[in-house]
């Protein structure tokens, strides 16, 4: 399952929305069809439709969903928009995921899992080693942060934390998962996240999808 699709699904699950997943057939290049380009002119997934509202870009979709359902009781305050300081912290750590964490971690996922499964190419160990070096430096920062706060943006879970789920989930299926053992607060944070019902449910779907790809 696409990590960016999973990003949105986590948020839909967290707010308890009813939703339907419509599969896009990559092999058949359905993402480049006129019908899909009308939803996402960049020909990417996910795209999202809620009545007349059509959106693309997974983080934008996710925020729309969270804002729409923000009165949904405990699911609520994942963006903290009622408080300037807390909202800023959510934005900061959401940007950090996009521009520091993901660029360091995702190449390991691509090289160890995705490229071998989808393209039948061997792992480029040089890329993996360089990425792990960068990731260690990022995790040093996360360790310090999570030693002071239970979650990245403060003491309750937020959109910033949820964003880390999809790629980190796959990272834990690579041979390098044990890297997190050197960062006890990061590891504990990760374990708190994956214990959430939304992530247990999606994790099961993602693992099944990954197993399906390997056999294909």
């Amino acid at each position: 399952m696409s990590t960016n699709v999973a990003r949105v699904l986590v948020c839909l699950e967290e707010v308890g929305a009813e939703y339907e997943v419509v599969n896009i057939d990559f092999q058949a290049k359905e993402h480049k069809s006129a019908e899909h380009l009308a939803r996402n002119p960049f020909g990417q997934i996910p795209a999202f439709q809620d009545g007349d509202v059509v959106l693309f870009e997974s983080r934008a979709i996710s925020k729309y969903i969270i804002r729409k359902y923000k009165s949904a009781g405990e699911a609520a305050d994942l963006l903290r928009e009622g408080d300037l300081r807390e909202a800023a912290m959510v934005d900061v750590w959401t940007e950090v995921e996009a521009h520091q964490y993901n660029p360091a971690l995702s190449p390991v996922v691509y090289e160890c899992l995705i490229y071998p499964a989808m393209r039948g190419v061997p792992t480029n160990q040089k890329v993996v080693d360089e990425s792990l070096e960068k990731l260690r430096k990022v995790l040093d920062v996360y360790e310090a942060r999570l030693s002071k706060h239970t979650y990245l943006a403060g003491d309750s879970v937020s959109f910033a934390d949820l964003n880390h789920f999809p790629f980190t989930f796959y990272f834990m299926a690579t041979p390098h998962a044990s890297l997190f053992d050197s960062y006890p607060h990061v590891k504990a944070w990760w374990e708190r996240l994956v214990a959430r019902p939304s992530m247990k449910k999606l994790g099961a779907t993602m693992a099944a999808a990954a197993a399906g790809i390997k056999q294909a």
Partner: protein
Amino acid sequence: MAVKLYGWSRSPFVSRALLCLEEAGVDYELVPMNKEAGDHRRPDHIARNPFGQVPVLEDGDLTVFESRAIGKHVLRKYKPELLGAGSLEDTAMVEMWLEVEAHQHHPAAGAIAHECIAAPALLGRMPNQAIIDENVEKLKKVLEVYETRLSKCRYLAGDFLSLADLSHFTVMHYFMATEYAALVEAHPHVKAWWEELAARPAAKKVAGFLTIGSGVTTEK
């Protein structure tokens, strides 16, 4: 309480934040930092931004880093209409086109500007033509999407100016100084949108900070 922005203003990231401060009419102080002297790696700066990067905003006792997060904070506090506030759909459009700026536009246009301008001026090396060519191909596709969008709406998020538009300004300013500006000029609606953005008083002021490759230094 004072609003302070730390960084070197020639950086398109620092100036992205400066543009938001200017548009919002905030009274702020720019605290210049010296990249060559490694100011960003010193403990006092690491305490503000553990990733050792610029810009960093201090708003009273709140510290914010990452340029788009700074932009959002400034506008949320001082000019929320530039975030589409008050409308779920408008907000979503702003977020969406800001993501497009960050993930489609910036990597391609930024790489071209970096190779053409920053590499010779700051890194003392020739542009890497292979990198330029690869990113020109990507940017062409991105600009086709922008042309279609801007044929329907005056601004990216709709008929109102937003952070989605403003976030493009600093990288585009540098990009438009390269020979590849022709890629933008080939699209009449993108060109018109760009010219309108660049004509804004705040943009003109910030353009004066974007001195890489111009032979002028505003700070050392």
